[in-house]
């Protein structure tokens, strides 16, 4: 039986495969055989190393040497030098751009490990249904420390000094919120966890609750101690059944251990948590709506002030924080404010979790320090755009955010930079779009969502967004006019300025930011009746080429509306009046005779 002493890992990510990764594997195999090493060294293809700019990459195990920009022709040298003589192939090592020194191990490459997991520290590591594993990872130690060794004021000061800001999107300083709630005098106060994650394409909070539910419970108890609340509520959408079941298990286990309940850690502090289910309304992510929904009322926002910190659930001071914000709290209290504030940018500290989705190779859940650029996120961690297409835009902040383009790729991501670029942090959804995505349709998609989700309380949001949607629809149908474009912009600004809550105040952002960044695309729809991305069905047609069509009749048989006519072995024709542009014929044609125009 072969017992391998060494392994050569070759990146099999899409980017590296495209640059001859497969040939490298084959050449290495060949050279190993020539040297009779095939039973001692194994070549293995791996997933993406997240280092695509320097690809293809090859990693030698067990000594962890990392070679970059390897070509198939380098195989003999790697085998002869590294494996036979035991010397590193210097010219293939990564050169640190700052020190100009060659770095051999990936762990020494600043470039390589772009992700730091703070909020996700236990996700994918511990068994979320076992409190023992959480405790073994220092779980509940922060709560113990705060309860027995600190005053509420001192703990709040740590959170303030850490610079932690609300991860739900707005970015309000968390410590300050706690302090405000603390200062209000009341018989009863409440601590709420906002787990009503509603942005399309966002699943950060769900993953944290499913992977590390105790972290949220611990942080809520700490919050209760700091603000003077004994009752915690988690508002979670009923469509997250696994998160709910794991939270329930976690709450039971914490109660059993006395980590929730009366006299926690032998002190006179008591705290318990209960779950409240939401029906999945987007507006209930807004804290006043959320509170009304928990009270059994309609999920509608009310004017702030008074803020929930002063008058919230049942008219009592209520501190609402988001799941990811809570997940950061225990670590900050254990590691200290200075440590946390050393990560990130001047005004945005720590890390942010993003749900990277869309047309990107490595779709996933990532956590990067604030200040990481979009380019690093999309091209290094995300492994670039799918199918070698061209990057067009990235949508951050969901229906409240905007799209960012090529020119924004090198901006360090933080709350303030994203706002300045016409988007926002939001809760962390990040949807990548390529050249095939039409920006007008994208804006329409989000407006469709907003129209559905508007609670209908205030007129600008209820009526205004509907009108925005209709105008966008008209434009994608090719019926838009120059006037519509002006109206679209004006109405957007009015909705922004006059809506009652965050939903309406931000809902025109997708329209405004696409109009700003892709004005030419709007004009192409309106003036030329063309959709440059080829996505708007009304503005395109399927056409059969007379030369390529052999008259196999397959297309006419799959057409659901009988729009295709023609005799056997004769070129066919699509009636544009009847065609519904379903694309069935296009997919079925074996001769590439049908094209989109």
């Amino acid at each position, binding site marked *: *039986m*072969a*017992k*391998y002493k060494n392994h050569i*890992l070759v990146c*099999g990510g899409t980017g590296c495969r495209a640059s001859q990764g497969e040939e490298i594997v084959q050449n290495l195999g060949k050279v190993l055989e020539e040297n009779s090493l095939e039973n001692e060294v194994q070549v*293995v*293809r791996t*997933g*993406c*190393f*997240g280092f695509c700019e320097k690809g293809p990459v090859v990693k030698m*195990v067990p000594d962890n040497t990392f070679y970059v920009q390897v070509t198939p022709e380098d195989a003999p040298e790697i085998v002869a030098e590294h494996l036979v003589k035991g010397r590193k192939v210097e010219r293939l090592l990564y050169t640190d751009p700052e020190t100009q020194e060659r770095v051999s191990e990936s762990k020494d490459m600043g470039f*390589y*490990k*772009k*992700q*730091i*997991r703070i909020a*996700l*520290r236990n*996700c*994918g*590591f*511990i*068994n*979320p249904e*076992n409190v*023992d*594993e959480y*405790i*073994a*990872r*220092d*779980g*509940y*130690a922060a709560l*113990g420390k705060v309860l027995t*060794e600190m005053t509420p004021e001192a703990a709040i000061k740590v959170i303030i000094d850490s610079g932690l800001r609300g991860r739900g999107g707005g970015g309000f300083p968390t410590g300050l919120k706690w302090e405000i709630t603390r200062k209000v005098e009341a018989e009863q106060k409440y601590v709420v966890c906002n787990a009503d994650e509603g942005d399309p394409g966002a699943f950060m909070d*769900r*993953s*944290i609750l*499913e*992977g590390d539910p105790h972290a949220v419970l611990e942080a809520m108890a700490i919050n209760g101690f700091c603000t003077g609340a004994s009752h915690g509520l988690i508002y979670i959408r009923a469509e997250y059944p*696994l*998160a709910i079941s794991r939270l329930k298990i976690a709450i039971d286990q914490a109660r059993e*251990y*006395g*980590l929730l309940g009366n006299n926690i*850690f*032998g002190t006179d502090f008591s705290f318990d948590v209960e779950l409240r289910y939401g029906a999945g309304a987007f507006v209930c992510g807004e804290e006043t709506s959320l509170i009304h929904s928990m009270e059994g009322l309609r999920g509608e926002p009310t004017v702030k002030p008074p803020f929930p910190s002063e008058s919230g659930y049942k008219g009592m001071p209520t501190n609402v924080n988001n799941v990811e914000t809570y997940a950061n709290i225990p*670590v900050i209290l*254990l590691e*200290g404010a200075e440590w946390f504030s050393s990560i990130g940018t001047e005004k945005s500290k720590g890390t942010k979790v993003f749900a990277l989705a869309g047309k990107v*190779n*490595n*779709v*996933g*859940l*990532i956590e990067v320090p604030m200040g990481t650029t979009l380019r690093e996120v999309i091209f290094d961690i995300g492994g670039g755009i799918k199918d070698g297409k061209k990057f067009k835009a990235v949508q951050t902040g969901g229906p409240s955010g905007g799209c960012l383009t090529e020119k924004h790729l090198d901006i360090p991501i933080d709350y303030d930079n994203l706002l300045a670029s016409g988007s926002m942090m939001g809760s962390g959804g990040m949807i990548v779009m390529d050249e095939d995505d039409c920006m007008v349709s994208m804006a329409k998609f989000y407006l469709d969502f907003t129209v559905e989700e508007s609670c209908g309380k205030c007129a600008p949001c209820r009526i205004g967004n509907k009108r925005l949607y209709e105008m966008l629809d008209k434009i994608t149908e090719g019926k838009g006019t120059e006037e519509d474009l002006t109206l679209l912009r004006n109405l957007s600004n009015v909705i922004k300025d006059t809506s009652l809550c965050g939903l309406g105040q931000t809902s025109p952002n997708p329209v405004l930011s696409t109009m700003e960044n892709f004005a030419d695309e709007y004009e192409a729809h309106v003036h030329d009746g063309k959709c440059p991305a080829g996505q708007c069905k009304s503005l395109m047609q399927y056409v059969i080429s007379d030369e390529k069509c052999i008259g196999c009749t397959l297309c006419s048989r799959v057409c659901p509306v009988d729009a295709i006519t023609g005799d056997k072995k004769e070129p066919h024709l699509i009636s544009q009046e009847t065609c519904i542009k379903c694309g069935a014929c296009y997919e079925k044609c074996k001769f590439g005779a049908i094209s989109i125009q």
Partner: protein
Amino acid sequence: MSKVKSLADLRKMRDELQTKVSLREKSDNPEKLVQVKVSMATCGIASGAKEVMNHMIEEMDRQAIDAIVTQTGCMGFCHAEPTIEVTLPGNDPVVFGHVDNKKADEIIEKYVIRGELVDGIIPVNYETVKENKNE
């Protein structure tokens, strides 16, 4: 289980539990136990993680391999679900992606039993905050 009454209690408990969990953190653990963690968040389960987990438990049981198979949360590699992490005694954890029953068999046969690597390894490209400092 008794209640945690003080911070000292918790620390004692943590130290005891750590030796149990440390299999996963220390590579020089002498025990001959194979650790398998299956990423079981909604996304993983939707792509078939549950079946793979059951399959691995049965298969390793059948082959009398001394192993612990546990579930864990999202590892973040949505593009390669279901994902599993395998830690052989004395080795660093290795993450495999796109694991179906067939791939699971290959991993057991080649990696777990013979120590050979298998195509489809996912390089872990993040650091996790180190705790246990403020004692």
